[in-house]
């Protein structure tokens, strides 16, 4: 049975009230204690910079967002495909496991300088690859886990029905794995944005949010730097929420209650 949903008021209003209170407190502290802008700018100052440079922030979001999205798609497709191969072929799983484990402990953004020399500092390829690698790991692990979650009773049922392997895969294995794939994608969605953004710190063309944050900060324009940070928060949230919405829609009835 489903639990009762909390009211709309509770979902929408409570965080808004809390957020407004925090911003007012922040503004009060900065003006009241006369905190310098390079330590912490006031929220209204950041807001003013954000609206004044809306076009620049939006351009930055588009550049970084595009890199993150391309990385997300490449990494997700690769992760799902290799997980399926691993689930089907034990030998491949044995070979891939240490490589993927190694990948998961490497701070992937640290590969950015190497990739810039490989693909040239004028191209976005290195950033997209960094995002793809960061996405690959959680998608691969979650998908593989999902593919192995088929319950014994379902396996028995498929054998009793004397169906082909492919029929069993379509009827039971893939739908069982689906919620796990989407959990992986949800985790990966914010990782993609973070990785694409951080990769910009290590070089490459200007225009993205990461580059804009560093250049604004180095020219002592702290309000503007924070406006770009605000832009990257919005971008990350947009990715996460999009993934969450798709996940909720697709896996509505896939949860297994026992």
């Amino acid at each position: 049975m489903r639990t009762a949903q909390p009211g709309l008021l509770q979902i929408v209003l409570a965080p808004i009230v809390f957020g407004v209170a925090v911003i007012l407190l922040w503004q009060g502290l900065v003006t009241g204690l006369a905190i310098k802008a390079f330590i912490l700018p006031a929220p209204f100052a950041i807001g003013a910079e954000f609206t004044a440079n809306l076009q620049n922030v939006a351009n930055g979001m588009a550049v970084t967002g595009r890199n993150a999205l391309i990385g997300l798609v490449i990494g997700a497709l690769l992760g799902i495909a290799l997980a399926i191969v691993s689930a089907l072929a034990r030998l491949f799983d044995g070979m891939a496991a240490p490589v993927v484990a190694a990948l998961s402990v490497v701070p992937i953004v640290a590969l950015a300088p190497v990739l810039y020399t490989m693909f040239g500092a004028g191209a976005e390829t290195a950033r997209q690859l960094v995002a793809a690698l960061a996405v690959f790991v959680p998608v691969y692990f979650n998908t593989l886990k999902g593919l192995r979650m088929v319950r014994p009773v379902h396996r028995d049922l498929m054998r009793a029905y004397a169906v082909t392997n492919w029929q069993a895969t379509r009827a039971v294995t893939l739908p069982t794995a689906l919620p796990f794939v989407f959990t992986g994608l949800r985790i990966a969605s914010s990782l993609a944005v973070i990785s694409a953004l951080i990769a910009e710190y290590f070089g490459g063309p200007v225009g993205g949010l990461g580059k804009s944050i560093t250049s604004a900060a180095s020219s002592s324009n702290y309000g503007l730097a924070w406006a770009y940070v605000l832009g990257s928060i919005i971008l990350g949230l947009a990715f996460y929420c999009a993934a969450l919405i798709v996940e909720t829609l697709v896996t509505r009835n896939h949860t297994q209650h026992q």
Partner: protein
Amino acid sequence: MSTSMTNDVPAVRVQGVTRIFAARKGSGVTALDDVSLTVAPGEFVSLIGPSGCGKSTLLRLVADLDVPTSGSIEVFGKPARQARIDQDYGIAFQQAGLLPWRTVAGNIELPLELHGVGKAARRARAAELIALVGLADFASHYPDQLSGGMQQRVAIARSLAESPSLLLMDEPFGALDEMTRERMQNELVRICAETQAAVVFVTHSIPEAVFLSNRVVVMSPRPGRIRSIVSVGLGEMSGRGEDLREDEGFFHALSQVRELLHGDEAGINPTGVRGVETR
């Protein structure tokens, strides 16, 4: 299906079946040791015994979900594997095992869909079965919106989808509370009377076995063997109702099975034993 089978071909014939599960060390575990059993068409046979007596293993062997180490199993005169491929039986497990992403109707249609039955025919058959198990108002519900008893009724409807002449049931009511359980037993009796299918029913409940069965197969553990077979003789399926639970013959069969289970064979009065085949 096998409705055209003549009466002299048994629904299930198990001959000298042994199943040994390999162990890492030593000689392995003997789950079943030289078991033989015949189930007539339309007959309801229960397998009962303590855990480890191999009753579920025997059912899985008949379903060809597992293969015997030695001995032979025939279902309607064919090897068990061929019977599985020909879909000669329907099966229900202790867990309902419904697919949570399919509705009640979708779950019942699953075997029909997998075996290429057309959409309209599928719909009609599912509606029929949903009515049979009394879930007409729940056809478009998802399994997690149903109680355990209702889920199990869907699983039973699913096992009946292709009108099998043999039903294999592995403790289908094992996870239900006592009241739901008795209601489900009454429904199963009614369904069996309507479908005329033979049933092999695994249970660890003595009253359940006696109430449902024509014959109760009492098994003993380590190694799994058939200790005795009790013919219950409580009459036709269609005549079995709630009042049967108060019947004297019911209590007689009950104590007979209980004494056999407890290994107290000497305690049975030989003159009072009707149709017990002591092996």
